[in-house]
């Protein structure tokens, strides 16, 4: 199966090694006999809502984020349409913020967002930096942990009742207070976790691939064949241990 990925603004939003996430999706797809076809979508490029099985948007520094934000807002309709049609989506850090309603700076200025995720981000005073460990339940009854690293000054507040990606076991999470991290709407996932996220959390990589394959084939998502993943598990174990020891401290 050919899985088409739309990678938004890779030249601007790549601060925390987002290409690591792409490498993981590509290799894990290939090991199951699928091919990942990653296409860059830059400033001014049209975003065809029907063209992609998975949309990816990474994080950037404030300056780069401000440079792409107006263009992304113009692509709002296409992002919503792609999501509505069942395409999977992963947004990390800055990309996660930009897909909410907006970002309110400390000077009160508001940078409008795409309004896909029901949240708003406000600039905080202290950066939230460190290892994070989450517990997620994307499918009923299937609990998994995610280990990553966060580094953000924005505090993201989910609307009441909006589903987070997971509960924070160790670390700050969306806002350092609510105990929530990220957001999950159908096949769309937003999170502050980088590290990059997918290498040491292969179950999430496979979940995303399963959603993307379902979109590409027009069938219901089916779990992928398991891979050995011993090294992935070891990397997860060390990262989770870091979060237990030093996550969520200023």
């Amino acid at each position: 199966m050919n899985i088409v990925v739309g990678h938004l603004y890779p030249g601007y939003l790549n601060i925390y090694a987002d290409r690591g996430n792409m490498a993981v999706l590509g290799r894990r797809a290939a090991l199951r006999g699928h091919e990942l076809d990653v296409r860059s979508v830059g400033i001014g490029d049209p975003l065809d809502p029907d063209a992609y099985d998975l949309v990816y948007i990474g994080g950037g520094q404030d300056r780069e984020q401000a440079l792409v934000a107006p263009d992304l807002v113009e692509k709002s309709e296409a992002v919503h349409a792609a999501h509505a049609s069942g395409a999977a989506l992963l947004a990390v850090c800055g990309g996660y913020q930009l897909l909410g309603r907006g970002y309110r700076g400390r000077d009160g200025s508001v940078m409008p967002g795409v309004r896909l995720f029901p949240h708003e981000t406000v600039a905080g005073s202290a950066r939230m930096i460190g290892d994070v460990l989450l517990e997620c339940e994307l499918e009923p009854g299937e609990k998994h942990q995610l280990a990553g690293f966060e580094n953000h000054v924005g505090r993201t507040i989910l609307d009441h009742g909006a589903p987070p990606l997971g509960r924070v076991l160790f670390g700050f999470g969306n806002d350092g207070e609510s105990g929530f991290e990220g957001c999950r709407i159908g096949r769309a996932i937003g999170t502050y976790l980088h590290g990059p996220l997918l290498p040491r959390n292969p179950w999430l990589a496979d979940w995303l691939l399963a959603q993307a394959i379902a979109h590409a084939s027009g069938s219901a998502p089916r779990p992928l064949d398991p891979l050995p993943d011993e090294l992935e598990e070891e990397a997860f174990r060390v990262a989770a241990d870091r979060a237990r020891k030093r996550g969520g401290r200023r």
Partner: protein
Amino acid sequence: MGLRLGIETLAARGLGALSRAAGRGGGTTLPGKLLWKLDPGSVDALAARLSKGSALVSATNGKTTTTAMAARILGDGSRLAWNQSGANLLSGIASELMSARRAELGLFEVDEGAFPEAAARMRPRVVALSNLFRDQLDRYGELELVAERWRAAVGALSGETMLVVNADDPVVASLADGRRHALRFGLDDPRHARPTLQHAADSKYCIRCGAPYEYAAAYVGHLGDYRCPACDHARPPLDLAAREVELRGLLGSRFRIDAPDGAVDIELGLPGLYNVYNATAAASLSLALGASLSDVQTGLKAFSAAFGRFERIPTGGKTIVVLLVKNPAGANEVLRTLETGVPPVLVLALNDAIADGQDVSWIWDVDFEPILEHAGRVVVSGDRAAELGLRMLYGGLSEDRLEVEPALERALDRGLELVEAGTELVVLPTYTAMLALREILSARGLVRPYWEGERP
């Protein structure tokens, strides 16, 4: 020196000797930490005693090497206070100021975050700023924040301070805009340009208008000969330029430095274009402090690498080559020096202590791929060995060529076992892994501990 300062420094110095006697490493910053705690103003007073003033060097990459090169160039003409061990926070500088009692000239590398306070307290004669790359974002926050703090610190410098900047870095070069006393250095040899900007290039958008720069030549990361097609912001003319660069793999390089008062041929025993930048920065700094071109030539020729950055250590008929890696831009340049002859065995060691950066995502920004195609065997080690192993596997290294050995000593011995007699084992450690590696080698009598390092 006031009476109080005298007593404080005496007590603090005693503490350093005590720390060494107790076998707790070099005690390089312990006395300084104490003094710094007791009386931060003491740094101002101690610095003011230096009859020839002081110079500060800061950058993401190359500050230790650049400062050591300048020390080699200037060390024959002046008695130096120089933080050779790399203790580059205010406490480390305080320690060095205390122990170098007869020094005339201060030569200090300064941590990027500590630079503003060091500059305010020490009133340096010369400041050299070389580059800003993404590095330890978990510690410094975003690169823009560091740049903003530097801008404010440079604005507060005396008008008499000579500012040496790398013209090839758009953000750093702009710090010298409008300054009366400034030296701009850079590279000028398009034969060594990268065909495209590297994945992790940082300041690639115009600092004035945000449009992507066009590069006539991109040398290291985003460093190069840039011009904005929209607003014409461009690399300023170079006061000092490295030209006719000949790279000789791990052996070193030859090049010419064109300076305002003439040209000089340089022979350098350190590999890579990044060390050409370091040497050109050191030359600019030294000239600003009164050295002659011939001092520069002699000093650089006699220079051997700064502590742990690049070392060749013979052992049992084999040679261990250690090259420090700590962030994407630096690691890419180190790997580039290996590209011409990819070694059959590589040992990579990744730690995640504060000094390494707790966030290890940077390894995914490093362009390992060209090396992985050719490497026969890669041994990954350190506290985050598994993470590094994943980087190798997902970067295309086949599983049968990867070995994971978190214990550094075992990884080193495994590497030595894998290379043939008469050949080299290349080891690439992060900072604390490098310190641990040196400890292992020092216990085997192969290197000396860093606090006993030679002075020029």
